[in-house]
């Protein structure tokens, strides 16, 4: 499954974000955590997800790859959604 990313700026203290797409459809929104989050600075946080089986607010994930893997797992667990 190919998930693609589009950079986006978020409102709030954690500014850098990514929209996650499956083909042309939005699947999730990730944010990169800023210094407010101390040990989790630089980690990726799942802000919103359109798959019913993944929990919004999952993570933080140390890498973008880890975050995408979790999103992929959520999609695979929701076969009806596509």
């Amino acid at each position, binding site marked *: 499954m190919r998930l693609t990313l589009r950079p986006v700026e978020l409102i*709030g*203290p*954690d500014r850098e974000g990514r929209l996650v797409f499956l083909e042309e459809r939005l699947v999730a929104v990730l944010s990169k955590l800023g210094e*407010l989050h101390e040990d989790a600075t630089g980690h990726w*946080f799942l802000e919103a997800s359109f798959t019913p089986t993944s929990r919004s*607010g*999952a993570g933080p994930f140390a890498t973008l790859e880890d975050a995408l893997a979790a999103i992929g797992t959520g999609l695979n667990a929701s076969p009806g959604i596509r």
Partner: protein
Amino acid sequence: MPGRLIDNLQNYVTLSADDRSALASLPSTRRSFTAGAEIVPENEAQTHCAVLIEGQAFRQKALADGRRQILSFHVPGDILDLNALFLTPDYSVSALTHGEVGLVPLPAMRELLETRPAIARGLWRISLVESAIYRAWLVGMGRRTALARIAHLLCEVFLRLKAVGLAQNGSCRFPVTQAHLADSLGLSAVHTNRVLQQLRAQGLITFQSGQLIVLDWNGLKAAGEFDPCYLHLPSDTA
């Protein structure tokens, strides 16, 4: 049995001198605990009832994947495992700070309930107030914004600590981590962190070395839509 339980009961019922004497002569063993220690295990039939004498604790439930839901916070005078009187507790109790419990053998507690109706009524009322607190938490987790949930909880904790003499000049010891708050309110730690920053930026509260400092009590209450009635505290507290 130290005065904490007597003081707690007297918030809800009038106790006679005989009642107080019966409570004071309950057999009990004092046990210290450290912050983070488990005080009462989940799903184990208890032989004793644990009364919090000093320190703070919380009830929690563990999920299969290792996450937890914190169910309530407790202050001195609370019976940590009120369920144990009649049922196996469906939660565990852990220490937020170091402190002490008084362990009272269940047969002695039950005999007290049989022979002292005012004490039985007081414990029943305490149980009803616990339920009211759970309902307030339910409403918060179901329908309030993250900011309102946190503000509401901080108001509740502050007033309950004030009622037992542990809050002065707008400040109380409440050494919770963001993880504790997140696990209490159905929020992620990330979201909790952002909301705490927002509460600080609005000049409502600050945390310093485990102390909760309420800078704007009316503002905090408004942010949490907090009405203390459900706590049924003595009228001079709220």
